[in-house]
């Protein structure tokens, strides 16, 4: 069995939390005591039925205001697949939380209110989904019950969204007309919309193919920790512990260590009592090398045939996540996999106006602004572009004054 991680994106009141609540409720995964708590709570819909949104709004302030503030992670499982849902807030104020949820998702559900159609927030969310490299998108046109389950209304929204998708470069889109409130086309196929011949949402989620890393050729293992027991019987033991982020490594493969550029050969791959012939993407292992080389946390093992970029000057997309604006005179920390070094903003290329998708020149990056910059790092980074390899193409900026994560970086090019 595999795991599908997905995010829900939509504006406040589009019904994201209700959709997830409905998904959980109708699949029968809500347990008796949780149901009882649900019935006990004061929040009810106008017709007296339970407000399913409270299944995900876990914070007091969220229940008070009836909105989602932070990402809630929900877990459920059917016979076919396990699911991790990142229920992200739609409010513009919490864009950074949506980026947080999207960074680990295989798939995005974009919610559109059937009465409102494609709005500013839809553009923003779709742009973010595209920027974060999510390739599978399902558009749920919600509240179909409020437009009389009208096929024309649905088709109009599909055609509007299709134009937007082209603009933000999203392919692979599936459209489903739903009512989260009434349960149409979520887990059960709706009798109210016989004109919809496609799948209902759960069926789609259970069967959609999960595309993970495209870059099979890029074998990358950032070293997190050097295992050196230094006991009498394991005097010479020296293992490099880390997680293969893409591609795979086999015993006898020749590898290069970056940034030093030293070459060696893998002699052993292990984990506790297990030995492996091959470590594939996603596996956490310990690797042994033939030669004694100076390797420490922050170094990256790569296969010798497809080398990443090695550079101190990188063009990158930036999503700014802090209330304090970007300061081009300040030195930030940059964390890229296990590597932590310092960096400065060499140049601000442009910001993107999220409403029009136009590029504007403005150095003033404020909370939730997105654009493109060039950074200069204190030490060279061994990276791939985000397009080629998400894990090795993403990094975060940390403000050295507050220690807060202030920016998400998606590397575009080596400009050294």
């Amino acid at each position, binding site marked *: 069995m*595999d795991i599908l991680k997905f995010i829900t994106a939509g504006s406040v009141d589009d019904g994201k939390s209700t959709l997830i609540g409905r998904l959980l409720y109708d699949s029968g995964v809500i347990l008796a005591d949780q149901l009882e708590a649900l019935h006990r709570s004061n929040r009810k819909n106008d017709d007296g039925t339970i407000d399913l949104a409270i299944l995900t709004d876990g914070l007091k302030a969220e229940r008070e205001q009836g909105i989602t503030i932070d990402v809630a992670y929900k877990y459920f*499982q059917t016979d076919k697949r396990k699911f991790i849902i990142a229920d992200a807030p739609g409010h513009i104020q919490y864009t950074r939380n949506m980026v947080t949820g999207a960074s680990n998702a295989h798939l995005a559900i974009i919610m559109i209110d059937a009465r409102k159609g494609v709005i500013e927030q839809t553009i923003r969310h779709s742009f973010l989904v595209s920027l974060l490299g999510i390739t599978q998108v399902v558009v749920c046109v919600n509240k179909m019950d409020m437009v009389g389950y009208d096929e024309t209304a649905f088709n109009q929204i599909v055609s509007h969204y299709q134009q937007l998708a082209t603009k933000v470069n999203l392919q692979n889109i599936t459209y489903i007309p739903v009512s989260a409130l009434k349960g149409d086309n979520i887990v059960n196929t709706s009798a109210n919309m016989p004109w919809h011949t496609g799948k209902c949402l759960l069926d789609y989620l259970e069967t959609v193919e999960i595309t993970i890393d495209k870059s099979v050729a890029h074998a990358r293992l950032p070293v997190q920790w050097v295992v050196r*027991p230094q006991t009498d019987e394991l005097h010479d033991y020296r293992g490099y512990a880390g997680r293969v982020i893409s591609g795979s490594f086999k015993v006898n493969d020749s590898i290069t260590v970056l940034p030093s550029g030293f070459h060696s050969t893998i002699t052993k791959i292990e984990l506790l009592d297990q030995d492996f012939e091959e470590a594939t993407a996603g596996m*956490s292992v310990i690797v042994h090398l033939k030669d004694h080389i100076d390797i420490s946390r922050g170094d990256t093992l790569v296969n010798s045939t497809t080398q990443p970029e090695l550079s101190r000057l990188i063009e990158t997309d930036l999503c700014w996540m802090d209330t304090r604006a970007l300061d081009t005179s300040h030195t930030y920390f940059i964390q890229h996999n*296990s590597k932590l070094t310092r960096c400065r903003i060499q140049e601000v290329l442009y910001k993107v106006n999220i409403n029009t998708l136009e590029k504007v020149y403005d150095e003033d990056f404020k909370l939730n602004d997105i654009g493109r910059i060039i950074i200069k790092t204190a030490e060279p980074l061994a990276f791939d572009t985000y397009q080629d390899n998400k894990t090795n193409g993403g990094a975060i900026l940390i403000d050295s004054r507050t220690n807060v994560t202030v920016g998400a970086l998606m590397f575009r090019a080596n400009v050294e």
Partner: protein
Amino acid sequence: MSKQLDYLDELEAEAIYILREVAGQFERPALLFSGGKDSITLVRLAEKAFRPGRFPFPLVHIDTGHNFPETIQYRDEMIARLGEKLIVGYVQNSINEGKAVEQKGKNASRNALQTVTLLDTIAHYEFDACIGGARRDEEKARAKERIFSVRDEFGQWDPKRQRPELWNIYNGKIHKGENVRIFPISNWTELDVWNYIRRENIALPSIYFAHQRDCITRNGQLMAAAEFLNMDEQDVVQNKTVRFRTVGDMTCTAAVESEAFLIDDIIDEISASRISERGARMDDKVSEAAMEDRKKGGYF
């Protein structure tokens, strides 16, 4: 296109990755060990992350003094097998020093007092990171928590000021006095933990399996009969076949009647159960936001 790992392999690899990030990023981390199945799973994951080396952190047990004796026995045997360091923080010491005050009344519990002892222990050993076995599926406030969860100098969690957590990059930078609570099995469900324990053949304290025990009924829940429970003549002691789904201390952990003597039985039982794991925790039922409020106050 590379193939996705099986879900248990994927969850395991992620947790090992997180533990190694703790080792790489912090000066003085600790692994909080309660003797429950989740922290026992963490210990196995730490073995996978660091063996044949030593753990780069001690295990820390916050002992309420109201433990199930089986848990303490398990803990001590495990530490002997691992050869790792154990630090115990005693709630009784906090009470003796006047820092914590014993609750009164029939439902008195030391559960809330643990926070005092935990924060004192963190301050005393200057821990900058505390690894815990919490899972997001346990409770709705937990579902909101990051894997690296920064706490201020008072141990407080502020849900509105959480750091964005992107990809698999965890920002562990903090100021002196702050610490980070780290949850490597955030993405596991109760059933995942059980399936992993079965797959890895991990031994557990015997109270997880069905056994005969003297119990009393309190507020509709079956509690193990123990002197800490402030029992009186109204409490009728009945011998029942029970097991425990979670292991807290004896004053706040309810038993379930069960015939699950083997791990396969437990997995069947949980798969069929209509009651969530936390449904058997008295401490979560105090109010709608009981867990959130405790976490804001520094609870683990």
